[in-house]
């Protein structure tokens, strides 16, 4: 059974197949057709809904998600808000009213998704008001494609909706709803209530997960589902046996130790971003360009690694940061350097009965540097053609602990040891980088596909090394000259565009 609230009303649905998405559930089973399917691959945002989960105080936090690739069974204990749930009969929600008055809809097909993204932004502004910077707007709306308007009126709606008279739907006026949802969530959790569709298991702790893995080694693990669900929506395969790791307590925690952080494999990318912002701002900046908010709210760090795509964004970055993995399973747990995890294209060191339990992110040394640069056709909501992650320290003017990793340049995300060696212990000068570049060309074998030719990838990867040299050079000069590097007033040292620089 899926037991949840939809726009304030309790729903108990039985006989929902394991691979049903939230979109299929609301459109086909509940007949609520306001939520649209644009691509069924989590790229366009037309299907955006808000999923509310209660925090410890019973306040419901709403996060946007692509309903087309979110498992319906994950709704258990949640409050799902769809576009039908925003307006009462007479009054539009401010997000809706602003969209009407700003002429933010033309064909109207993407509009329900845009309205839902605006709704989550509106809720966020109510709970934690903060300036609507370009970055925040992009974060809120970057996952919603509109083919008609060119987005200007949508931007206007986002910027003005807070000024509209507050209008709340019936369910929001119901003060008890937060408590009701919290009670339901606890009930669902305590009883370990599993779906009556027997193929969908939702273990609550690592012991239960180990047991399930032993019993059902062939079951698919799902956390965010943002890649797995494409098998059903795009390849039309049946998925009948699922272990959902999203609520395994141990996998959703971040444990801080002296040397760094053990990040549970089921921690969502959104949840991880504040930690990254504090310690690895370049990594956090990258995450703004990782798919979209809708995806980041569901997708997990463990999933992005286990997926083992050669063009995933976090693996090269984590390789450069010397991350480690803790694998777990019925036969016990073991630790592994991340670079030993990726064996070949989509092939990893994970045994059939194992799962990723946690990822260790080392604490940065005071003089640690990290640059992460993603190249793609579109800046937002796109997949890398090339991603370069560069970590190093400068010690008495020479580079130490140089760790460089690339995505999109081989069958797996990988480090480039010969290139690293060319820089390790060298001054960051043109000669050393020339050696590094020559080494890089030899040790990478990029693919050619719709995202870029092999020639382009090779050239771009080499040029990222050159960017790195120029940036180190500029930063050292700015340190000595005490002038701001990489700003408009210093043309000669500006080596990236502001929107990409980090």
């Amino acid at each position, binding site marked *: 059974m899926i037991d949840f609230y939809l726009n304030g009303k309790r729903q108990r649905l039985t006989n929902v197949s394991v691979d049903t998405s939230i979109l299929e559930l609301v459109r086909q089973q509940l007949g609520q057709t306001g939520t649209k399917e644009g691509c069924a691959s989590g790229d366009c945002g037309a299907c955006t809904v808000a999923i509310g989960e209660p925090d410890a105080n019973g306040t419901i936090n709403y996060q946007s998600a692509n309903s087309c690739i979110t498992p319906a069974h994950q709704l258990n204990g949640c409050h799902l808000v769809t576009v039908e749930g925003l307006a009462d009969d007479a009054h539009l929600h401010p997000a809706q009213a602003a969209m009407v008055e700003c002429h933010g809809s033309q064909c109207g097909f993407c509009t329900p998704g845009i309205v839902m993204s605006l709704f989550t932004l509106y809720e966020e502004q109510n709970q934690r008001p903060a300036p609507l910077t370009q970055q925040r707007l992009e974060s809120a709306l970057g996952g919603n494609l509109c083919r008609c308007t*060119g987005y*200007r009126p949508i931007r206007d709606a986002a910027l003005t909706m807070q000024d509209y008279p507050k209008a709340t739907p019936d369910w929001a006026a119901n003060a008890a709803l937060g408590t009701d949802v919290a009670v339901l969530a606890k009930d669902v959790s305590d009883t370990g209530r599993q779906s009556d569709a027997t193929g969908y298991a939702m273990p609550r702790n690592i012991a239960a997960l180990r047991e399930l893995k032993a019993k059902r080694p062939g079951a698919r693990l799902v956390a965010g589902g943002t890649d797995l669900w494409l098998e059903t929506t795009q390849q039309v395969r049946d998925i009948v046996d699922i272990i959902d790791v999203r609520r395994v307590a141990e996998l959703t925690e971040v444990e801080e130790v002296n040397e760094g952080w053990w990040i549970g494999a089921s921690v969502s990318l959104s949840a991880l971003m504040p930690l990254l912002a504090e310690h690895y701002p370049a990594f956090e900046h990258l995450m703004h360009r990782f798919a979209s908010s809708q995806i980041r709210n569901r997708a997990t760090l463990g999933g992005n690694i286990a997926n083992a795509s050669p063009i995933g964004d976090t693996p090269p970055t984590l390789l450069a940061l010397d991350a480690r993995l803790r694998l777990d399973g019925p036969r016990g747990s073991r630790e592994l350097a991340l670079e030993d995890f990726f064996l070949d294209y989509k092939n990893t060191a994970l045994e059939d009965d194992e799962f990723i339990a946690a990822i260790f992110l080392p604490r940065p040394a005071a003089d640690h540097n990290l640059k992460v640069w993603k190249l793609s056709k579109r800046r937002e909501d796109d997949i890398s053609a090339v991603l370069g992650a560069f970590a190093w320290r400068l010690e008495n003017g020479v580079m130490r602990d140089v760790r460089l990793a690339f995505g999109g340049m081989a069958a797996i995300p990988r480090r480039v040891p010969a290139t690293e060696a060319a820089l390790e212990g060298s001054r960051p000068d043109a000669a050393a980088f020339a050696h590094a570049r020559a080494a890089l060309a030899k040790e990478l074998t990029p693919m050619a596909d719709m995202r870029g030719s092999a020639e*382009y990838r090779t050239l771009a990867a080499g040029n990222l090394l050159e960017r790195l040299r120029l940036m180190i050079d500029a930063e050292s000069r700015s340190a000595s000259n005490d002038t701001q590097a990489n700003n408009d007033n210093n043309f000669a040292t500006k080596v990236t565009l502001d929107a990409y620089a980090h």
Partner: protein
Amino acid sequence: MRTLTDLDQSPRSSEDATRRRYQGDEPLARDTVNNRGGAGSARPHESAVKHVTGRAAYIDDLATPANTLHVMVGQSPVAHGRITRMDLEKVRAFPGVVDVVSLADVPGHTDIGPVFGGDPIFAHDEISYAGQNLFAVAADSYKAARQAVKAAIVEIDEQPASLDPVAAAEREEFVRPTHVHERGDWQAALDGALHVLEGTQFVGGQEHFYLEGQACLVEPTEDEGVVVHTSNQHPSETQKLVAEVLDIPFHAVTVSNRRMGGGFGGKETQASPWACIAALFARRTGRAAKVRLPRADDTRGTGKRHPFHNAYKLGFDERGVLSGGDIDVIGDCGYSPDLSEAVVDRAMFHADNAYSLGSARVTGKRAKTHTASNTAFRGFGGPQGVMIIERAMDDIARYVGEDPLTVRKRNLYREADPDGTPRNVTHYGQRVEQISLLHDVISQLEDSSDYWNRRREITRFNAQSPIIKRGLALTPVKFGISFTAQHLNQAGALLHVYTDGSVMINHGGTEMGQGLHTKICQVVARELGLDLEQVRITATRTDKVPNTSPTAASSGADLNGMAARDAASKLRDRLFEFAAAHFDVEGGGLDRETMRMEHGELVSGYGEDEQRVAWGELVQAAYIGRVSLSEKGFYATPLIHYDRATGRGRPFYYYAHGAAVSEVEVDTLSGEYRVSRVDILHDVGDSLNPAIDMGQVEGGFIQGMGWMTSEELKWNDAGQLTTVGPSTYNIPAFGDLPETFNVKLMEGHPNSQASIYRSKAVGEPPFMLGISVWSALRDALASMADYRFCPVLDTPATPERVLMVAEQLRQAKRSRYNDNVRPGHEPA
């Protein structure tokens, strides 16, 4: 006995309160011209509230009978070959499958080509592109239908696919004959020119990426026919094709469309096959049948904007002023004609853009290749034609050492050269009428965008910045308005007034988001002097207004607006005649001469003689008086003609103009770039609805920018499209909106032709404003060659293409050949 509803006699004035000056970045907010919602006012889209609440229904949202079938098509994985075996037994046996059809099951026509034929509803023997329909299956569920398709056994003798349109053109493999425009002695112009430049370019295609994919729902009727609900820009054509496929009369088929989730040309001819297939199932099974294509099937199976290979050879003087030359455009049409005859024609008609070519020949070729049959897409070939002359303008400017804007201005259409040579006639013989408007648009934008100060600033910046380069470009638009197929320039409308005073208008145009229905309601409201709320529009249906043209060629409001106005004015006149005799009989009747509709009232006389009759009272009196409250309207565009034999005529009723200035910032190490500022001034004549027109201008620009930058179609060597969804095909996203985006509608220039309230068409022309982004990218790259030439940059100008050009320029500089090597230029 029929009784009449009690009416609220007070004129309505409610909407003033709800209408607010809409907010946004200056200078977008505009006060409305007519605050009662009639034509000219910035009213929201008629469905806006339904859009934002999710109540606006698209095809897949329609309630369906419980036993509705779900239809899926089996597509060819191969681009070219012969079917040697197609065994569908396992498909038929798949759980949930109700029926399977292939070519042999079609009772009527099997060729559903829209104009010329050549499009089989299912491939039978020869396969012509990867994605071509082979068969279709109808099942109890969407998933079952999708899975069943995969059970087919299809064996194909695969043959090499022809994927290079240039090679195809050399082999004279065309879908339609080559067409030529020629005016003056172009060869003599080249021979006598002080300078001659030539160059070639590739202009990429474009996927429509309407957010609502192809979809239709077909219900069998109690006769031999069907009712077709379809996301469709051309209901009448679908009616015809469905009837022909079923071998039944047209009157047995009704096609209906309330709205589309985007069209952009992609549902003009491309929506019909699915309706034909679903209709087959509906008639065979007696059950409703629905098609909703998965995004990848849609992208593979349907035609796109034509990629073009263009070439120019042009002569010019020391000031860069053209004397004439030769332009070749080759459209990659895909496997069949579809609309390619007219698309390549339109590319030819726009190979001059806003510039007088002089003595010129323009040749258009229609190459046949093994891809989906390319089709209509906003601009309809025009943008691809514009690209070649904009390329030449940049090349020539750098060649003569002038700013590209200077050379563009010198070449604009003008009355005559100083020596008296007329320069106001196009290469196909049409006179350009609003020349002062064209020049005004550019000079106003030049000032408002601060072009020359920014040019100086950018030049200074680039001289000091080794990696980041900035570019700036102004490109104009002159776009011909009318279908080039003369007979399509007609429209009909049907107006009903009910006895409570509410009004229903129906017309032949379809709503795809462009605001056509809103504008039509505004026209009717204005003609009848009513509040907009009293006028409602219904789904476009072939049983209400027959034999309609597609909603295309930017013509929707021009044609249907005039037809609606015709209906409304005829009905108004009839009511006036009636009122003159019916009211104030003792006083000798109302004065017919001064009669007018204002604010929901009929008014006659002025001052003390003024008399008023409320609309509702008038309507009820007319009903009781047995006066018809229904009227139809019709419109045919005057003046236009084109003789294909001579390549001469006046194919366009008028031209729409505009211009854009774009500034970009390019990282020459990575190829990444940002569009930092855009200024647009666009001509819509006297706007019917400034808010909607602004939406078309802005949306058109961004879509054009996407075509020029991130939207890349890629086929593999086997001819399979590899960019079949939004994870690989990148339309602009929110962050691509330029940070500074100053958009204005040109004021003070009503249409010189008698269009609907002197407005102008707005759907397609702004699309070409996006070309300024590409020109600005070339400008930024040209700085790496010290502006001595303008490097070749094919489109889409992805970061990859930009980087490759930048690298070439960097290498050229390093290798000291830079004085001799001018990539992209072959001085003739």
